[in-house]
């Protein structure tokens, strides 16, 4: 699998994501946000966590208008895989690749802790290493992780099986306890929790490994 990780000013999980993909066997390139196109032949583009552009205006808003983002949107429209974690999820909602928006946590505090997630859909390249109903533990570290979507859209996401993960104990006020959302073609996942921070036992957990391994396997097989 050929993967790229986009780096914005203020990204801080870019190297973690690269390591998670490399350990799973992917060939990873880092791409600076001012590049106006992605390298040829990519299977996966990952948008990392952090505080791109200082979260000015809205989280992810300015990153979503960076030169590289037009190329990211084209990659998504062509059916390429995209993973957005934390700030990356916020960027994906700002580009319109994923529905909804992320606003300030209901409790107003920045939350940094491990959370339990329920796997809601195990029929995607991202989640096939898990079983529906299984609980996994990923860390969260965000101030604006409160996922909001109109009620009718929430019903549509549920009906189409587009909720990847929910929180076992909602930490931030997200509608429907949603922690991660999938695109209609099942090729784009955005989630607030950090699977890339759960790939090494020395860092507290390895529940994220199954996501990266499954992605690399399924994309190689495709």
């Amino acid at each position, binding site marked *: 699998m050929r993967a790229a990780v986009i780096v914005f000013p203020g990204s801080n999980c870019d190297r973690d994501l690269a390591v998670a993909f490399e350990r799973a066997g992917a060939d990873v390139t880092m791409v600076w946000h001012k590049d106006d196109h992605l390298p040829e032949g990519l299977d996966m583009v990952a948008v990392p966590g952090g505080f791109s552009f200082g979260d000015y205006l*809205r989280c992810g*808003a*300015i990153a979503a*208008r960076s030169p590289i983002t037009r190329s990211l949107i084209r990659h998504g429209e062509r059916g390429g895989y995209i993973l957005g974690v934390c700030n990356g999820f916020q960027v994906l909602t*700002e580009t319109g690749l994923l529905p909804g928006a992320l*606003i300030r946590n*209901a409790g107003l505090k920045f939350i940094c802790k491990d959370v339990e997630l329920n796997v809601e859909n195990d029929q995607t390249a991202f989640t096939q290493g898990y079983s529906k109903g299984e609980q996994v533990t990923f860390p969260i570290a965000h101030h604006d992780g409160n996922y909001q979507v109109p009620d009718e859209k929430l019903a549509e996401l549920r009906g189409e099986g587009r909720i990847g993960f929910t929180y076992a104990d909602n930490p931030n*006020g997200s509608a429907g306890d949603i922690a991660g959302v999938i695109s209609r073609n099942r090729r784009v996942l955005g989630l607030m929790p950090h699977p890339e921070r759960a790939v090494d036992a020395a860092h507290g957990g390895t529940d994220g490994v199954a996501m990266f391994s499954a992605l690399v396997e399924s994309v190689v097989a495709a």
Partner: protein
Amino acid sequence: MKIRVDVMLKTGVLDPQGAAVQHALGTMGFEGIQGIRQGKVIELDLAENDKAKACAQAKEMCEKLLANTVIESYKVEAL
């Protein structure tokens, strides 16, 4: 010409910051506050001097960047 853009969370979207400000004012003894919504004001200084054209430019900026119309509404006003 100067343009003022008000960006507010849409009615029905939870506003945790507004709720916290309302709570704080309540504890300070201000009574009868029935609701607080917090938004932002953005002032643009545009080279365009035609009011209609300047407002149209600002509206396009709102649609493309200044507001996230999934959760926010905006109002454009020439100053």
